[in-house]
């Protein structure tokens, strides 16, 4: 079963439109919510006039930040610092911050009433650029450090001062002193804009308070984190909060941690009626985004092209509230070093508060920003030294047993292989361009990415009396195919047909704890938990079969989904064993817990349980009349360990390429005094079918020597942008230091360079 494609169990529902997204859920009597959002970037709230709205048709309740005071709830949430109010309390910190919520019997009535609410503000100075936010006279967004949430084992909280939300530091070798070994030092500043996830399904949640229990059906990637946030908010034991996650219509990081669930739960609690919220596309743009980054990268090299020292000074724009920034700047900090042997490294990575919507997790998780810097700079260094950029990389790539800049030894290292594999794109030549104004160029990039460490996954396996098997998992199915892969892993581990297996998705009342569906971790981490659960179930089956056969367990063998006494013909089915056990079902829970963590001061330790390794080679045509870039050919290679489902694995890589290409050429949220200026899919450009490379090659580098599963859902995203930038530079001599590489930017750079 492992290594083969498998029919998606709910394919019928997927193509007929009957898949049960949150959007379709609506218990009788449901109230529909509309939010009133701040239209100023930073202000004290003077007053919120709700009287007219309260009287509007269909309106059941209107709540503001004032209503959150003194009603026995804890009105702020956040996965690291609980600093984000459900509804703004006394002050707003970004355009789009929820100020009031209207609950009505119909969504359109709720929106109509929300338009009647007037908010008066006393405006404060606002700051949008992370560098401006660090100025001595900058307005401070958060005067005091907010209450720390339960947080996570890997997160280091330090450096909070002024508008600095958090800081990550890494010191390796002689740090900055290492630059004395360099013959040449290259220094550049690279920038990436804020970007929206644009999952096709918007954020949505339905909350029900019943019998002193809260049930929330939502499209989150982190059911347990949402459960715990809600339990804390309403001061309830977690046992009375239930989070159910039906199939999700795309996540890409944007649905990690509580987002719209708190306000739905608030209304449900206040009214005693089910409350449903569905965000519009415009609201998605002010809910969460990829961190804007400014990375100053200094690299010392010897004359013959060995990297000896690197300094990373990274600013990540956190927006108004913390969300998961402290982890992202950590991963983005060491993620900006690259897959190279560099003996002396110095990293300062900071998350900065500004008056913009909060940034959060986004496919690539900080590494896309770092790779944009270091893989662009590799070509700049090569040009400066007169070396071939491919040779420069090969000379410096990490090898088996090398230490990463965190001090940990790397194993299962395949950078050279994935890099060379991607470059095989250039073994053949396409027909030359037909016009002399089309310039063709080639570029490449190779990256290293961590997975969240330490982390925990649990899976429960249940064998029914008919021999059918269920896997209970809190891994969220959001299109990445995890449930199919987990079913394949379980079927293989038990030796039963895939068709007899059912995966039961996240319901915190039913499915055991999992940290998160993110970080390319589910097939690897949850897969390991499933294998462990299967091993325990197998042991139970063998033990019960031995009792029934009145033989020693060592004499029982389980093969092809049946049990028998070794060397005999007669068999017992799984169902017969369960039936004979008189237990009704056999159940076991398997766990996977990884260890690690970094020293706060030096960033030394274990950053990742295993390392994601990927490379991209790209060939582009640049129309020098218009600046238009076409990526005609692209090859991506990922180190894939032992592939469970090759079709799904490939589709994850293609998805990463689509994301990377879209961000390379088109995507940026444009703010005008804190207002999103391109808040819809007409003005915010996404790559579509016609923009995908006509020749797109995907390569999964497997390791036949391992049964270990390797994450791969994000790995080939970060190298896309720098590979394209390097190809553009190769074609035209134009070097972009800032994303996206729009036609306008290319034309402007052509004029100025």
């Amino acid at each position, binding site marked *: 079963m492992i290594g083969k494609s498998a029919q998606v169990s709910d394919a019928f529902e997927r193509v007929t*439109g009957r898949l049960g997204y949150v959007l379709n859920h609506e218990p009788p009597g449901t109230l529909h919510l509309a939010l009133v959002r701040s239209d100023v970037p930073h202000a004290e709230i003077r007053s919120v006039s709700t009287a007219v709205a309260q009287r509007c048709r269909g309106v059941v309740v209107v709540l503001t930040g004032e209503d959150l005071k003194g009603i026995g709830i804890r009105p702020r949430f956040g996965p690291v610092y609980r600093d984000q109010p459900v509804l703004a309390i006394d002050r707003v910190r970004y355009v789009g911050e929820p100020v009031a919520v209207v609950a009505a019997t119909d969504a359109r*009535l709720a929106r109509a009433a929300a338009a009647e609410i007037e908010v008066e503000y006393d405006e404060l100075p606002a700051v949008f650029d992370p560098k401006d936010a660090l100025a001595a006279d900058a307005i401070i967004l958060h005067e005091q450090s907010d209450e720390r949430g339960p947080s996570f084992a890997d997160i280091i909280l330090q450096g909070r001062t002024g508008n600095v939300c958090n800081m990550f530091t890494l010191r390796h070798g002689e740090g900055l002193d290492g630059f004395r070994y360099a013959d040449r030092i290259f220094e550049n500043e690279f920038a990436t804009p804020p970007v929206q996830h644009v999952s096709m399904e918007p954020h949505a949640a339905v909350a029900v308070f019943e019998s002193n229990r809260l049930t929330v059906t939502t499209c989150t990637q982190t059911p347990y984190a949402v459960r715990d946030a809600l339990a804390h908010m309403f001061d309830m034991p977690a046992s009375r909060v239930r989070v159910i996650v039906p199939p999700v219509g795309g996540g890409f990081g944007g649905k990690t941690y509580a987002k719209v669930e708190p306000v739905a739960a608030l209304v449900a609690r206040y009214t005693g009626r089910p409350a449903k919220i569905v965000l*519009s596309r415009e609201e998605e743009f002010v809910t969460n985004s990829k961190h804007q980054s400014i990375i100053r990268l200094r690299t010392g090299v010897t004359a013959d092209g060995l990297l000896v020292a690197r300094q990373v000074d990274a600013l990540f724009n956190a927006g108004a509230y913390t969300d998961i920034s402290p982890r992202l700047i950590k991963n983005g900090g060491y993620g900006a070093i690259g897959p190279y042997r560099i003996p002396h490294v110095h990293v300062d990575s900071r998350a900065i508060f500004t008056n913009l919507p909060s940034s959060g997790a986004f496919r690539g998780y900080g590494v896309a920003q770092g790779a944009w810097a270091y893989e662009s700079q590799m070509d700049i260094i090569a040009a400066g030294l007169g070396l071939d950029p491919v040779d420069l990389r090969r000379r410096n790539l990490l090898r088996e047993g090398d230490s990463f800049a965190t001090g940990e030894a790397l194993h299962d290292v395949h950078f050279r292989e994935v890099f060379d594999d991607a470059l095989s794109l250039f073994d053949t030549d396409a027909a030359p361009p037909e016009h002399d104004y089309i310039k063709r160029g080639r570029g490449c990039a190779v990256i290293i990415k961590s997975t969240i460490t330490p982390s925990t996954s649990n899976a429960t396996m249940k064998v029914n009396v008919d021999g059918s098997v269920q896997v209970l998992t809190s891994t969220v199915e*959001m299109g990445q195919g995890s449930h199919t892969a987990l079913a394949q892993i379980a079927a293989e581990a038990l030796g039963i047909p895939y068709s007899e297996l059912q995966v039961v998705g996240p319901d915190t009342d039913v499915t055991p704890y999992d940290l998160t569906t993110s970080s390319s971790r589910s097939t690897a981490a949850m897969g390991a938990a499933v294998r462990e659960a299967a091993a325990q179930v197998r042991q139970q089956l063998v033990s019960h079969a031995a009792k029934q056969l009145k033989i020693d367990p060592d004499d029982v063998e389980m093969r092809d989904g049946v049990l028998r006494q070794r060397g005999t013909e007669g068999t017992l089915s799984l169902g017969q064993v369960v039936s004979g056990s008189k237990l009704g079902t056999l159940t076991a829970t398997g766990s996977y817990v990884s260890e690690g963590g970094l020293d706060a001061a030096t960033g030394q330790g274990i950053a990742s349980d295993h390392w994601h390794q990927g490379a991209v080679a790209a060939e582009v045509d640049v129309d020098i009349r218009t600046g238009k870039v076409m990526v005609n050919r692209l090859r991506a290679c990922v180190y894939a360990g032992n592939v469970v489902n090759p079709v799904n694995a490939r589709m994850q890589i293609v*998805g990463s390429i689509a994301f990377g290409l879209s961000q390379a050429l088109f995507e940026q949220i444009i703010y005008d005094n804190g207002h999103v200026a391109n808040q819809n899919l007409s003005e915010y450009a996404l790559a579509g*079918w*016609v923009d995908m490379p006509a020749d797109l090659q995907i390569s999964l580098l497997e390791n036949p020597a391992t049964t270990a599963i390797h994450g791969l859902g994000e790995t080939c995203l970060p190298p896309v942008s720098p590979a394209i930038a390097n190809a553009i530079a190769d074609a035209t001599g134009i070097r972009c230091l800032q994303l996206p590489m729009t036609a306008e930017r290319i034309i402007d750079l052509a004029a100025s360079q």
Partner: protein
Amino acid sequence: MIERSELRLRVNGTWQEVRATPQDTLLDVLRRELGLFSCRETCGIGLCGACTVSRDGKAISSCLVLALAAGEWSITTAEGLVQAGQLHPVQQAFVDAQAFQCSFCTPGFVMSLVAMLAEPPEQRSVAAALSGHLCRCGSYGQIAEAARQLMADHDMNQEG
């Protein structure tokens, strides 16, 4: 806000009594009144294709038309393509090619390809049919594969 009024719509081959206000889009009514959840709002401005339904055989964005204008039309949604529990060939091609990931956009793509295949052969264009649709998961390659397979099957049936 104007009251909802009665409206007769022909959806998936059946005349249905629904209630709609003048502001309601066809998408609003298909979802709210008829529980046809295959059409979905993703952009609300006719750009993403996720709300695509068939109007008398042509693919349209149901978020862009008012429900009250749809009384004379024959509307088909992805749910209505299923006959006696059997998937429509376009839906089956999507299953065979595994042309979906999160699947939120899938019914829209299906409806546009159904409409495209109903065109005279010389007017059929996969590129044109797919250009009005976004798939953020990036399943374009598999969707194009499903479309290629359908075109090939269709041509074979024509010749046969």
